[in-house]
């Protein structure tokens, strides 16, 4: 006669089977087939029947020249773009998100309006907001240039989204605009969870707005911020739609995903593209592991 807990465990396992199957087939299978593809010479003609070629797609020396993903300066350029984009946009989003969360805390008649306004950028689909910004930043008809020229800051309209010097900054700003609400919500939840009496004790001890934030509020919402950074960081490393929509061909903002896609689908270098995809997965994976390690260690200290 099985004990109650044994029966429970078995039931749990049985319930887990369908989920595991779905996960394995939808996530594991493509992962493995991409890995396999990266070791073949698959192109348009032989896609259904490629040949195994080992690590040629990753790195190869032919007649004195280096070929392969790891030898492609464009690949490393896109890695650099992705990292720059991720670091700056996540930082900006955290700062904006915290600010919005603090604003959302203010109790007044406009509270519902402020909250809706804060959430709207996130609710708008990327393609809509990308086009919106494109039009606002357009050099001849865009409102942004119109205002700058009117204020005398610029003489002619600037092509913000295609100018190599400004396109990355523009992308970062659009992304921060779009996703700060996400950070704001996480931080807001953290703020709401702050025990009010602790803040009052702070007031009694003599905090003003700034010291209260620095000594009490900020350390206590750090876990929420860490969660936001992990999520946003992983999203940012995977960025595709915004960059593709604004300027798919530009070298200055090309991210790893845009690079991989171009190799795969525009050049039909399925093997090479798969290798690029594998590399980008590896890079993101390593960064993710390092980051989660650090934040969890940080949390362990507090949670004990």
């Amino acid at each position, binding site marked *: 006669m099985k004990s109650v807990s044994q029966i429970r465990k078995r039931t749990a396992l049985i319930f887990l089977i369908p989920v595991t199957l779905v996960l394995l087939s939808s996530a594991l299978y493509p992962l493995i087939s991409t890995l396999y593809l990266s070791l073949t010479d698959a*192109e*348009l*003609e032989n*896609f*259904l029947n490629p040949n195994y070629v080992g690590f040629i797609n990753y790195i190869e020396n*032919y007649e004195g*020249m280096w*070929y392969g993903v790891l030898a492609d300066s464009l690949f490393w350029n896109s890695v650099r773009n992705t990292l720059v984009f991720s670091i700056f946009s996540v930082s900006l989003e955290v700062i904006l998100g915290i600010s919005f969360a603090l604003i959302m805390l203010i109790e007044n008649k406009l509270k519902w309006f402020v909250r809706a306004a804060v959430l709207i950028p996130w609710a708008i689909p990327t393609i809509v907001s990308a086009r919106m910004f494109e039009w606002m930043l*357009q*050099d*001849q*008809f865009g409102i942004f240039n119109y205002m700058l020229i009117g204020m005398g800051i610029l003489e*002619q*309209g*600037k*092509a913000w*989204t*295609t*100018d*190599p010097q400004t396109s990355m900054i523009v992308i970062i700003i659009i992304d921060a605009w779009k996703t700060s609400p996400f950070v704001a919500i996480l931080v807001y939840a953290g703020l709401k969870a702050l025990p009010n009496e602790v803040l009052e004790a702070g007031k009694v001890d003599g905090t003003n707005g700034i010291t209260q934030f620095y000594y009490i509020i900020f350390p206590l919402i750090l876990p929420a911020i860490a969660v936001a950074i992990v999520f946003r960081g992983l999203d940012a490393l995977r960025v595709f739609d915004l960059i593709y929509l604004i*300027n*798919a*061909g*530009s*070298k200055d903002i090309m991210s790893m995903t845009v690079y991989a896609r*171009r190799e795969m*689908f*525009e*050049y*039909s270098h*399925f093997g090479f593209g798969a290798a690029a995809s594998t590399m980008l997965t590896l890079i993101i994976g390593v960064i993710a592991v390092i980051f989660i390690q650090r934040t969890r260690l940080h949390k362990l200290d507090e949670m004990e």
Partner: protein
Amino acid sequence: MMMKKTILSFFISLTFLFSFNATAIELNFAQGGGSQGQMTMELTAEWEKKTGHKVNFLEMPASTSDQYVQYKTWLSAQNSDVDIYKVDNVWAGEFGTQLIDLKPYLDEQLEIMPNVLSAYTTAKGEIIGLPYSVGIPMLYYRTDLLEKYNRDVPETWDEMTATAQFIQDKERAAGNDKMWGFVWQGNAYEGLTCDALEWVASHGGGMIVEKDGTISINNPNAAAALDMAAKWVGTISPEGVIGYKEEDARGIWDQGNAVFMRNWPYAWSLSNKDESSVKGKFDVVELPRGPNGKSTSTMGGWGYAVSKYSEKQEVAVDLVKFLSNRDAQHATIAEYSMPPVYIEIYDNKEHAETYSLLPLLKGPSQALLPRPSAQTSGKWPQVTVAFYTAAHEVITGKKDGTTAVAELEAALKKIKGKGW
């Protein structure tokens, strides 16, 4: 309840009856939307009436590069569900091996303009697509402004630049500070490849990769051509031109704020609409030439191709021939204003009444140069990216022409690898 069941089964059998026309074949046709898509659908409806077959149109995304990607995916998966593809002339070379040779079936289509048909012909002489329109880029110019300042229609790039600068300065001095000299397509995309190829070829700088596969781009004429364009940015062209595609340039032209525009024929009828500020005030001429070359227009245009994996090839070929024969051209030219592919139609006086551009196109149609996609076969996407990236770097001031073409040659060699 019995009554309901009877009625239901009656209707079900009716639908079966209607869908079961044993002799009618159903074809799947992949094409982008827009007015050209509209035109194809109208012509196809005629064919459906005539033959009793049915055609399903699979509407593709608006962006041609997205269509390209989708077609590639289908073809590499040997998808037998799609029978006919509407293809850009550049893709023909690349998809060649996946499309059937139409040559054995053609009759009057063999009389299509040879330079146009050549873009759809593989190195082995197979005709893998039938063009129905050809894109002939031209120089649009403001007749009123040239007259006002007593300037001739330019024949060389230098003349165009000088006239553009002159008129722009005068107009701005007179208070019209939104006026620009020349608008074109400078964004980093396939369109820039077209514009830049025109500059290079008309300077005698070759066509990037010659017909025999030689990489010819690294030469002083080509470098000079790119440097010339770089000088336009911020002087006679707005700085934003480095981000313009066709519609951006046309937008400025349409508002009356450009003296010259380089664009495709589609802009002709749009600029003559009542809402346009330039209605009746402009004309077209072939593109200018450089000191060592001839006027060049990069060939555009679309055609129809039949998939090698289609299971209804005979019927598909029939439709494709129908859509590209002379009758089809005559039927649609007035309404859709597209340059035709049979040379004698350019002389047709009747059509010229509704499509005023028609006779003006004849000259430029002889200056057509297809992009080197056939000789670079499957690697054209990489070649065009390398080329337009290099051109973009020159016009944004990152590199000068000489450095750019030298580096481009190295890049192309790497792409060529073991062979085209």
